[in-house]
Protein backbone atom coordinates (compact mmCIF):
# COMPACT_ATOMS: atom_id res chain seq x y z
CA UNK A 1 0.00 0.00 0.00
CA UNK A 2 1.09 3.62 -0.58
CA UNK A 3 2.61 5.55 2.27
CA UNK A 4 1.02 8.98 2.52
CA UNK A 5 2.67 10.31 5.67
CA UNK A 6 5.98 9.05 6.95
CA UNK A 7 8.08 10.61 9.70
CA UNK A 8 11.47 9.45 10.83
CA UNK A 9 12.87 10.60 14.19
CA UNK A 10 11.03 13.88 13.68
CA UNK A 11 11.72 16.59 16.28
CA UNK A 12 10.54 20.14 16.71
CA UNK A 13 12.14 22.53 19.18
CA UNK A 14 10.62 25.97 19.63
CA UNK A 15 12.44 29.00 20.94
CA UNK A 16 13.75 28.69 24.51
CA UNK A 17 14.28 24.97 23.99
CA UNK A 18 10.65 23.89 24.27
CA UNK A 19 10.55 20.38 22.74
CA UNK A 20 7.10 20.00 21.13
CA UNK A 21 8.01 16.79 19.32
CA UNK A 22 10.90 14.46 20.06
CA UNK A 23 11.98 11.57 17.82
CA UNK A 24 8.55 10.85 16.41
CA UNK A 25 8.51 8.05 13.83
CA UNK A 26 5.20 6.98 12.34
CA UNK A 27 3.58 5.92 9.08
CA UNK A 28 0.10 6.53 7.75
CA UNK A 29 -1.02 4.73 4.62
CA UNK A 30 -3.22 5.97 1.82
CA UNK A 31 -6.91 5.67 2.69
CA UNK A 32 -6.35 5.38 6.43
CA UNK A 33 -8.43 7.20 9.07
CA UNK A 34 -6.20 7.95 12.05
CA UNK A 35 -6.81 9.83 15.31
CA UNK A 36 -4.06 11.77 17.00
CA UNK A 37 -4.66 12.11 20.71
CA UNK A 38 -2.92 13.15 23.87
CA UNK A 39 -3.19 15.72 26.66
CA UNK A 40 -2.97 19.47 26.22
CA UNK A 41 0.49 20.50 25.00
CA UNK A 42 1.37 17.00 23.80
CA UNK A 43 2.43 18.18 20.35
CA UNK A 44 -0.63 17.29 18.25
CA UNK A 45 -1.01 20.70 16.66
CA UNK A 46 2.72 20.90 16.11
CA UNK A 47 2.73 17.67 14.11
CA UNK A 48 -0.14 18.92 11.98
CA UNK A 49 1.55 22.27 11.49
CA UNK A 50 4.66 20.50 10.27
CA UNK A 51 2.51 18.54 7.83
CA UNK A 52 1.14 21.82 6.49
CA UNK A 53 4.65 23.32 6.17
CA UNK A 54 3.59 26.05 8.59
CA UNK A 55 6.67 25.16 10.61
CA UNK A 56 9.91 23.47 9.57
CA UNK A 57 11.16 20.38 11.42
CA UNK A 58 14.14 20.96 13.71
CA UNK A 59 15.42 17.48 13.10
CA UNK A 60 14.44 14.24 11.38
CA UNK A 61 12.61 13.62 8.13
CA UNK A 62 9.01 14.21 7.13
CA UNK A 63 7.69 12.98 3.79
CA UNK A 64 4.19 13.24 2.34
CA UNK A 65 3.44 11.02 -0.67
CA UNK A 66 7.17 10.46 -0.97
CA UNK A 67 8.14 14.15 -1.10
CA UNK A 68 10.37 15.59 1.58
CA UNK A 69 8.48 18.68 2.77
CA UNK A 70 11.69 20.37 3.86
CA UNK A 71 12.83 20.63 0.25
CA UNK A 72 9.80 22.37 -1.23
CA UNK A 73 10.27 25.85 -2.65
CA UNK A 74 7.71 28.58 -1.71
CA UNK A 75 5.68 28.14 -4.88
CA UNK A 76 5.61 24.36 -4.40
CA UNK A 77 4.54 24.77 -0.78
CA UNK A 78 1.49 26.73 -1.92
CA UNK A 79 0.64 24.10 -4.55
CA UNK A 80 1.11 21.33 -1.98
CA UNK A 81 -1.18 23.06 0.51
CA UNK A 82 -3.91 23.21 -2.13
CA UNK A 83 -3.98 19.41 -2.14
CA UNK A 84 -4.64 19.31 1.61
CA UNK A 85 -7.79 20.07 3.56
CA UNK A 86 -6.86 21.56 6.92
CA UNK A 87 -9.18 22.34 9.83
CA UNK A 88 -7.44 24.80 12.14
CA UNK A 89 -7.87 24.64 15.89
CA UNK A 90 -8.66 28.38 15.86
CA UNK A 91 -10.67 28.16 12.59
CA UNK A 92 -8.73 30.88 10.73
CA UNK A 93 -11.66 32.26 8.78
CA UNK A 94 -11.16 35.51 6.88
CA UNK A 95 -13.29 38.14 8.68
CA UNK A 96 -13.57 40.37 5.61
CA UNK A 97 -15.28 37.62 3.59
CA UNK A 98 -18.71 36.09 3.94
CA UNK A 99 -19.10 32.40 4.72
CA UNK A 100 -19.69 31.71 1.03
CA UNK A 101 -16.57 33.62 -0.01
CA UNK A 102 -14.48 31.98 2.68
CA UNK A 103 -15.31 28.55 1.42
CA UNK A 104 -15.42 29.21 -2.33
CA UNK A 105 -12.13 31.09 -2.29
CA UNK A 106 -10.24 27.79 -2.31
CA UNK A 107 -12.10 26.75 -5.47
CA UNK A 108 -11.55 30.09 -7.12
CA UNK A 109 -7.82 29.72 -6.66
CA UNK A 110 -8.08 26.33 -8.37
CA UNK A 111 -9.65 28.04 -11.35
CA UNK A 112 -13.19 26.60 -11.20
CA UNK A 113 -15.95 28.53 -12.93
CA UNK A 114 -18.13 30.56 -10.62
CA UNK A 115 -21.12 28.30 -11.28
CA UNK A 116 -19.11 25.28 -10.20
CA UNK A 117 -17.77 27.26 -7.22
CA UNK A 118 -21.29 28.04 -6.03
CA UNK A 119 -22.63 24.55 -6.56
CA UNK A 120 -19.79 22.83 -4.71
CA UNK A 121 -19.72 25.41 -1.90
CA UNK A 122 -23.44 25.08 -1.37
CA UNK A 123 -23.02 21.31 -1.20
CA UNK A 124 -20.38 21.31 1.56
CA UNK A 125 -22.24 23.99 3.53
CA UNK A 126 -25.24 21.67 3.46
CA UNK A 127 -23.09 18.80 4.74
CA UNK A 128 -22.19 20.83 7.86
CA UNK A 129 -25.75 22.17 8.14
CA UNK A 130 -25.03 25.86 7.55
CA UNK A 131 -26.34 26.60 4.06
CA UNK A 132 -28.79 29.14 5.56
CA UNK A 133 -25.92 31.23 7.01
CA UNK A 134 -23.88 31.51 3.82
CA UNK A 135 -24.12 35.29 3.54
CA UNK A 136 -23.13 35.95 7.14
CA UNK A 137 -19.67 37.05 8.19
CA UNK A 138 -17.66 34.68 10.40
CA UNK A 139 -17.70 37.00 13.42
CA UNK A 140 -21.50 36.87 13.35
CA UNK A 141 -21.50 33.11 13.88
CA UNK A 142 -21.40 31.09 17.07
CA UNK A 143 -18.22 29.21 17.98
CA UNK A 144 -19.57 25.89 16.76
CA UNK A 145 -20.85 27.41 13.53
CA UNK A 146 -17.44 28.89 12.80
CA UNK A 147 -15.87 25.52 13.40
CA UNK A 148 -18.24 23.90 10.93
CA UNK A 149 -17.39 26.54 8.31
CA UNK A 150 -13.72 25.72 8.83
CA UNK A 151 -14.55 22.05 8.24
CA UNK A 152 -16.53 22.92 5.12
CA UNK A 153 -13.61 24.89 3.73
CA UNK A 154 -11.24 21.99 4.34
CA UNK A 155 -13.47 19.59 2.43
CA UNK A 156 -14.59 21.80 -0.43
CA UNK A 157 -11.83 20.96 -2.92
CA UNK A 158 -11.99 17.19 -2.40
CA UNK A 159 -8.47 16.98 -0.99
CA UNK A 160 -6.37 13.81 -1.06
CA UNK A 161 -5.41 14.36 2.57
CA UNK A 162 -7.51 15.90 5.33
CA UNK A 163 -5.81 17.14 8.49
CA UNK A 164 -8.13 18.31 11.25
CA UNK A 165 -7.00 19.88 14.51
CA UNK A 166 -9.59 19.43 17.25
CA UNK A 167 -12.46 19.81 14.75
CA UNK A 168 -15.20 19.15 17.30
CA UNK A 169 -13.92 21.12 20.31
CA UNK A 170 -16.81 23.56 20.04
CA UNK A 171 -19.51 21.08 18.99
CA UNK A 172 -21.99 19.11 21.05
CA UNK A 173 -21.64 15.30 21.06
CA UNK A 174 -24.39 14.68 18.47
CA UNK A 175 -22.97 17.17 16.04
CA UNK A 176 -19.46 15.85 16.67
CA UNK A 177 -20.52 12.40 15.68
CA UNK A 178 -22.23 13.76 12.57
CA UNK A 179 -19.04 15.54 11.54
CA UNK A 180 -17.07 12.36 12.17
CA UNK A 181 -19.46 10.48 9.94
CA UNK A 182 -18.79 13.07 7.30
CA UNK A 183 -15.06 12.42 7.65
CA UNK A 184 -15.72 8.69 7.46
CA UNK A 185 -17.70 9.16 4.27
CA UNK A 186 -14.90 11.15 2.68
CA UNK A 187 -12.44 8.54 3.91
CA UNK A 188 -14.50 5.81 2.29
CA UNK A 189 -13.97 7.58 -1.03
CA UNK A 190 -10.20 7.20 -0.66
CA UNK A 191 -9.15 10.35 1.20
CA UNK A 192 -6.61 9.88 3.97
CA UNK A 193 -7.83 11.51 7.20
CA UNK A 194 -5.80 12.51 10.27
CA UNK A 195 -7.80 14.02 13.13
CA UNK A 196 -6.26 15.43 16.31
CA UNK A 197 -8.67 15.28 19.21
CA UNK A 198 -8.79 14.91 22.96
CA UNK A 199 -12.27 13.44 22.90
CA UNK A 200 -11.72 9.78 23.88
CA UNK A 201 -15.43 9.11 23.75
CA UNK A 202 -15.49 10.13 20.11
CA UNK A 203 -12.49 7.96 19.24
CA UNK A 204 -14.21 5.05 20.90
CA UNK A 205 -17.43 5.68 18.98
CA UNK A 206 -15.71 6.00 15.62
CA UNK A 207 -13.44 3.07 16.37
CA UNK A 208 -10.39 3.72 14.25
CA UNK A 209 -6.66 3.61 14.75
CA UNK A 210 -5.37 6.21 17.26
CA UNK A 211 -1.87 7.50 17.86
CA UNK A 212 -1.20 8.86 21.34
CA UNK A 213 1.28 11.62 21.96
CA UNK A 214 2.53 12.84 25.30
CA UNK A 215 5.12 15.55 25.80
CA UNK A 216 6.33 15.12 22.25
CA UNK A 217 6.71 11.33 22.36
CA UNK A 218 4.54 8.72 20.73
CA UNK A 219 3.24 6.76 23.71
CA UNK A 220 0.71 4.44 22.17
CA UNK A 221 -0.44 3.29 18.77
CA UNK A 222 -3.79 1.56 18.98
Amino acid at each position, binding site marked *: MDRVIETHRLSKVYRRGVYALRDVSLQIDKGEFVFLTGPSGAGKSTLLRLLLCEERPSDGRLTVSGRNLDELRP*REVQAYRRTIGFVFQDFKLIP*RMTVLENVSFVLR*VLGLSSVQQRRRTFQVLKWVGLQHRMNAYPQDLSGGEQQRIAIARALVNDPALVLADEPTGNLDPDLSLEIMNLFREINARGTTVLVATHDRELIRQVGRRAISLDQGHVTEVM
Partner: protein
Amino acid sequence: MGALAYSLEQALLSLWRGRGASLLSIATITLALFVLGAFLLVTLNVQRLVGAWRGSAELSIYLQDEATPAERTAVEHLLDASPFVAAHDYVSKSQAEKRFAALFPDLAGLSGEPAGNPFPASIEVRLRSGPGTEGAVDALAGRLRAAAGVSDVRYDRRWIDRLVTLAGIVGAVGLLLVTVLSVAGALSVAIVVRLALFARRDEVEIMRLVGAPLSYIRGPFVTEGLLHGGVGALIAIGLLLAGLVAVRAEYGLAVQAALGLAPIWLLPLRLCGLVVVGGMVVGGIGGLVAAWSSR
Protein backbone atom coordinates in the same frame (compact mmCIF):
# COMPACT_ATOMS: atom_id res chain seq x y z
CA MET B 1 -5.52 35.85 -15.74
CA GLY B 2 -7.51 34.56 -12.77
CA ALA B 3 -5.04 36.15 -10.41
CA LEU B 4 -5.19 39.46 -12.29
CA ALA B 5 -8.97 39.66 -12.25
CA TYR B 6 -8.96 38.58 -8.62
CA SER B 7 -6.36 41.21 -7.71
CA LEU B 8 -8.28 44.03 -9.35
CA GLU B 9 -11.55 42.88 -7.82
CA GLN B 10 -10.06 42.59 -4.35
CA ALA B 11 -8.25 45.92 -4.63
CA LEU B 12 -11.45 47.70 -5.65
CA LEU B 13 -13.35 45.90 -2.91
CA SER B 14 -10.72 46.86 -0.38
CA LEU B 15 -10.84 50.46 -1.59
CA TRP B 16 -14.59 50.43 -1.11
CA ARG B 17 -14.83 48.50 2.13
CA GLY B 18 -12.00 50.43 3.74
CA ARG B 19 -13.17 53.80 2.43
CA GLY B 20 -11.90 55.68 5.48
CA ALA B 21 -8.36 54.40 5.40
CA SER B 22 -8.24 54.49 1.61
CA LEU B 23 -9.35 58.09 1.55
CA LEU B 24 -6.69 58.93 4.09
CA SER B 25 -4.09 57.14 2.02
CA ILE B 26 -5.12 58.70 -1.25
CA ALA B 27 -5.21 62.10 0.42
CA THR B 28 -1.65 61.63 1.60
CA ILE B 29 -0.40 60.63 -1.80
CA THR B 30 -2.35 63.50 -3.32
CA LEU B 31 -0.76 65.94 -0.93
CA ALA B 32 2.74 64.63 -1.52
CA LEU B 33 2.33 64.79 -5.29
CA PHE B 34 0.56 68.15 -5.12
CA VAL B 35 3.34 69.74 -3.12
CA LEU B 36 5.92 68.17 -5.39
CA GLY B 37 4.10 69.36 -8.51
CA ALA B 38 3.59 72.83 -7.05
CA PHE B 39 7.27 73.03 -6.37
CA LEU B 40 8.30 71.94 -9.80
CA LEU B 41 5.81 74.42 -11.18
CA VAL B 42 7.02 77.37 -9.12
CA THR B 43 10.67 76.53 -9.74
CA LEU B 44 10.00 76.24 -13.44
CA ASN B 45 8.16 79.54 -13.64
CA VAL B 46 10.66 81.43 -11.50
CA GLN B 47 13.51 80.10 -13.60
CA ARG B 48 11.84 81.24 -16.80
CA LEU B 49 11.03 84.58 -15.25
CA VAL B 50 14.61 85.18 -14.19
CA GLY B 51 15.73 84.07 -17.61
CA ALA B 52 13.38 86.57 -19.19
CA TRP B 53 14.61 89.32 -16.91
CA ARG B 54 18.20 88.54 -17.68
CA GLY B 55 17.30 88.66 -21.33
CA SER B 56 15.83 92.11 -20.90
CA ALA B 57 18.73 93.46 -18.87
CA GLU B 58 19.31 97.00 -19.99
CA LEU B 59 22.27 99.26 -20.43
CA SER B 60 21.44 102.94 -20.38
CA ILE B 61 23.87 105.38 -21.97
CA TYR B 62 23.24 109.00 -21.05
CA LEU B 63 24.51 111.51 -23.56
CA GLN B 64 25.88 114.90 -22.69
CA ASP B 65 23.64 117.72 -23.79
CA GLU B 66 26.46 119.00 -25.92
CA ALA B 67 27.04 115.64 -27.67
CA THR B 68 27.14 115.91 -31.45
CA PRO B 69 25.23 113.57 -33.77
CA ALA B 70 28.60 112.21 -34.89
CA GLU B 71 29.48 111.30 -31.32
CA ARG B 72 26.11 109.58 -30.99
CA THR B 73 26.70 107.64 -34.19
CA ALA B 74 30.12 106.59 -32.91
CA VAL B 75 28.52 105.23 -29.78
CA GLU B 76 25.91 103.42 -31.84
CA HIS B 77 28.63 101.89 -34.00
CA LEU B 78 30.34 100.70 -30.85
CA LEU B 79 27.08 99.02 -29.80
CA ASP B 80 26.46 97.46 -33.19
CA ALA B 81 29.91 95.93 -33.09
CA SER B 82 29.26 94.07 -29.81
CA PRO B 83 27.81 90.57 -30.15
CA PHE B 84 26.03 90.98 -26.83
CA VAL B 85 23.81 93.86 -27.87
CA ALA B 86 20.38 92.74 -29.05
CA ALA B 87 18.97 96.15 -29.90
CA HIS B 88 19.36 99.80 -29.05
CA ASP B 89 17.06 102.73 -28.99
CA TYR B 90 17.69 106.43 -29.01
CA VAL B 91 15.67 108.50 -26.55
CA SER B 92 15.96 112.20 -27.22
CA LYS B 93 15.85 114.88 -24.54
CA SER B 94 12.27 115.77 -25.38
CA GLN B 95 11.19 112.14 -25.40
CA ALA B 96 12.79 111.74 -21.97
CA GLU B 97 10.91 114.74 -20.68
CA LYS B 98 7.64 113.39 -22.07
CA ARG B 99 8.26 110.04 -20.43
CA PHE B 100 8.88 111.70 -17.09
CA ALA B 101 5.78 113.80 -17.46
CA ALA B 102 3.76 110.71 -18.25
CA LEU B 103 5.13 108.89 -15.21
CA PHE B 104 4.79 111.82 -12.80
CA PRO B 105 2.02 114.06 -14.08
CA ASP B 106 1.92 116.06 -10.85
CA LEU B 107 5.57 117.05 -11.27
CA ALA B 108 5.24 118.06 -14.88
CA GLY B 109 5.20 121.77 -14.06
CA LEU B 110 8.37 121.52 -11.99
CA SER B 111 10.61 120.02 -14.61
CA GLY B 112 10.76 122.58 -17.36
CA GLU B 113 11.24 125.76 -15.40
CA PRO B 114 14.66 127.14 -14.55
CA ALA B 115 17.18 125.61 -16.94
CA GLY B 116 15.13 124.31 -19.85
CA ASN B 117 14.79 120.55 -20.25
CA PRO B 118 16.96 118.86 -17.54
CA PHE B 119 16.64 115.34 -18.91
CA PRO B 120 19.59 113.99 -20.81
CA ALA B 121 19.22 112.19 -24.11
CA SER B 122 20.06 108.52 -23.83
CA ILE B 123 20.50 105.30 -25.76
CA GLU B 124 18.74 102.31 -24.19
CA VAL B 125 20.33 99.02 -25.01
CA ARG B 126 18.76 95.58 -24.75
CA LEU B 127 21.34 92.92 -24.13
CA ARG B 128 21.46 89.36 -25.33
CA SER B 129 21.96 86.97 -22.44
CA GLY B 130 24.36 84.09 -22.66
CA PRO B 131 27.52 82.73 -21.11
CA GLY B 132 30.19 85.32 -20.56
CA THR B 133 27.78 88.19 -21.14
CA GLU B 134 28.39 89.83 -17.84
CA GLY B 135 32.14 90.27 -18.07
CA ALA B 136 31.91 91.44 -21.67
CA VAL B 137 29.15 93.90 -20.86
CA ASP B 138 31.19 95.29 -17.98
CA ALA B 139 34.04 95.90 -20.43
CA LEU B 140 31.65 97.44 -22.94
CA ALA B 141 30.24 99.71 -20.26
CA GLY B 142 33.74 100.94 -19.43
CA ARG B 143 34.51 101.65 -23.08
CA LEU B 144 31.23 103.50 -23.56
CA ARG B 145 31.75 105.53 -20.43
CA ALA B 146 35.04 106.73 -21.92
CA ALA B 147 33.52 107.59 -25.31
CA ALA B 148 33.09 111.20 -26.34
CA GLY B 149 29.68 112.74 -25.66
CA VAL B 150 28.69 110.17 -23.05
CA SER B 151 27.92 111.56 -19.62
CA ASP B 152 27.13 108.28 -17.84
CA VAL B 153 26.57 104.59 -18.39
CA ARG B 154 24.28 102.63 -16.08
CA TYR B 155 24.22 98.88 -16.10
CA ASP B 156 21.70 97.28 -13.72
CA ARG B 157 24.14 94.59 -12.90
CA ARG B 158 24.02 94.68 -9.13
CA TRP B 159 20.31 94.13 -9.11
CA ILE B 160 20.46 91.35 -11.62
CA ASP B 161 23.14 89.65 -9.57
CA ARG B 162 20.97 89.93 -6.53
CA LEU B 163 18.04 88.49 -8.40
CA VAL B 164 20.05 85.64 -9.84
CA THR B 165 21.43 84.84 -6.41
CA LEU B 166 17.95 84.94 -4.93
CA ALA B 167 16.61 82.75 -7.71
CA GLY B 168 19.51 80.39 -7.11
CA ILE B 169 18.70 80.19 -3.40
CA VAL B 170 15.02 79.67 -4.11
CA GLY B 171 15.95 76.97 -6.61
CA ALA B 172 18.29 75.23 -4.16
CA VAL B 173 15.72 75.33 -1.38
CA GLY B 174 13.16 74.09 -3.89
CA LEU B 175 15.38 71.19 -4.91
CA LEU B 176 15.96 70.29 -1.27
CA LEU B 177 12.24 70.41 -0.58
CA VAL B 178 11.39 68.37 -3.66
CA THR B 179 13.86 65.72 -2.51
CA VAL B 180 12.49 65.77 1.00
CA LEU B 181 8.94 65.59 -0.30
CA SER B 182 9.65 62.71 -2.65
CA VAL B 183 10.97 60.79 0.32
CA ALA B 184 7.91 61.86 2.31
CA GLY B 185 5.64 60.69 -0.50
CA ALA B 186 7.31 57.29 -0.75
CA LEU B 187 7.22 57.01 3.01
CA SER B 188 3.54 57.78 3.21
CA VAL B 189 2.75 55.24 0.51
CA ALA B 190 4.78 52.71 2.47
CA ILE B 191 2.87 53.62 5.63
CA VAL B 192 -0.46 53.43 3.88
CA VAL B 193 0.22 50.08 2.25
CA ARG B 194 1.63 48.87 5.53
CA LEU B 195 -1.60 50.00 7.13
CA ALA B 196 -3.56 48.01 4.57
CA LEU B 197 -1.31 45.04 5.20
CA PHE B 198 -1.55 45.45 8.94
CA ALA B 199 -5.29 45.50 8.73
CA ARG B 200 -5.19 42.31 6.73
CA ARG B 201 -2.11 40.50 7.95
CA ASP B 202 -4.23 37.72 9.48
CA GLU B 203 -6.02 37.34 6.19
CA VAL B 204 -2.75 37.16 4.27
CA GLU B 205 -1.52 34.52 6.69
CA ILE B 206 -4.71 32.51 6.26
CA MET B 207 -4.51 32.72 2.46
CA ARG B 208 -0.99 31.45 2.65
CA LEU B 209 -2.05 28.55 4.83
CA VAL B 210 -4.93 27.46 2.61
CA GLY B 211 -2.51 27.33 -0.31
CA ALA B 212 -3.36 30.45 -2.31
CA PRO B 213 -0.75 31.07 -5.05
CA LEU B 214 1.61 33.93 -4.29
CA SER B 215 0.10 35.98 -7.12
CA TYR B 216 -3.27 35.86 -5.37
CA ILE B 217 -1.72 36.91 -2.10
CA ARG B 218 0.43 39.75 -3.38
CA GLY B 219 -1.55 40.90 -6.39
CA PRO B 220 -4.29 42.74 -4.51
CA PHE B 221 -1.78 44.78 -2.53
CA VAL B 222 0.24 45.82 -5.56
CA THR B 223 -2.96 46.67 -7.39
CA GLU B 224 -4.20 48.63 -4.42
CA GLY B 225 -0.95 50.59 -4.28
CA LEU B 226 -1.22 51.34 -7.99
CA LEU B 227 -4.81 52.48 -7.62
CA HIS B 228 -4.03 54.69 -4.65
CA GLY B 229 -1.07 56.23 -6.46
CA GLY B 230 -2.98 56.79 -9.68
CA VAL B 231 -6.06 58.27 -8.05
CA GLY B 232 -3.91 60.45 -5.81
CA ALA B 233 -1.95 61.71 -8.81
CA LEU B 234 -5.07 62.58 -10.77
CA ILE B 235 -6.51 64.51 -7.85
CA ALA B 236 -3.17 66.28 -7.35
CA ILE B 237 -3.13 67.36 -11.00
CA GLY B 238 -6.66 68.64 -10.68
CA LEU B 239 -5.68 70.63 -7.60
CA LEU B 240 -2.61 72.03 -9.34
CA LEU B 241 -4.71 73.16 -12.29
CA ALA B 242 -7.28 74.72 -9.99
CA GLY B 243 -4.57 76.45 -7.96
CA LEU B 244 -2.93 77.76 -11.11
CA VAL B 245 -6.19 79.17 -12.42
CA ALA B 246 -6.97 80.73 -9.04
CA VAL B 247 -3.55 82.36 -8.65
CA ARG B 248 -3.73 83.60 -12.21
CA ALA B 249 -7.12 85.16 -11.63
CA GLU B 250 -6.06 86.72 -8.34
CA TYR B 251 -2.56 87.92 -9.07
CA GLY B 252 -2.15 87.69 -12.83
CA LEU B 253 -2.55 91.33 -13.69
CA ALA B 254 -0.71 92.66 -10.67
CA VAL B 255 2.24 90.37 -11.34
CA GLN B 256 2.31 91.22 -15.00
CA ALA B 257 2.25 94.93 -14.27
CA ALA B 258 4.92 94.80 -11.61
CA LEU B 259 7.29 92.53 -13.45
CA GLY B 260 6.91 94.21 -16.77
CA LEU B 261 6.62 90.77 -18.34
CA ALA B 262 3.87 88.25 -18.75
CA PRO B 263 4.95 85.45 -16.42
CA ILE B 264 4.71 81.93 -17.74
CA TRP B 265 1.65 80.13 -16.37
CA LEU B 266 2.31 76.64 -17.51
CA LEU B 267 1.25 73.18 -16.37
CA PRO B 268 3.28 71.20 -18.88
CA LEU B 269 1.84 67.91 -20.06
CA ARG B 270 5.18 66.30 -19.30
CA LEU B 271 4.82 67.31 -15.66
CA CYS B 272 1.31 65.84 -15.53
CA GLY B 273 2.50 62.58 -17.03
CA LEU B 274 5.39 62.53 -14.62
CA VAL B 275 3.10 63.02 -11.63
CA VAL B 276 0.68 60.25 -12.69
CA VAL B 277 3.37 57.75 -13.61
CA GLY B 278 5.35 58.72 -10.52
CA GLY B 279 2.32 58.24 -8.28
CA MET B 280 1.51 54.84 -9.73
CA VAL B 281 5.11 53.66 -9.67
CA VAL B 282 5.61 54.79 -6.09
CA GLY B 283 2.24 53.34 -5.07
CA GLY B 284 2.89 50.07 -6.85
CA ILE B 285 6.36 49.76 -5.38
CA GLY B 286 4.98 50.53 -1.94
CA GLY B 287 2.37 47.81 -2.41
CA LEU B 288 4.96 45.39 -3.75
CA VAL B 289 7.35 45.97 -0.89
CA ALA B 290 4.59 45.66 1.66
CA ALA B 291 3.26 42.49 0.02
CA TRP B 292 6.71 40.94 -0.23
CA SER B 293 7.64 41.75 3.32
CA SER B 294 4.51 39.94 4.52
CA ARG B 295 6.59 37.09 5.88
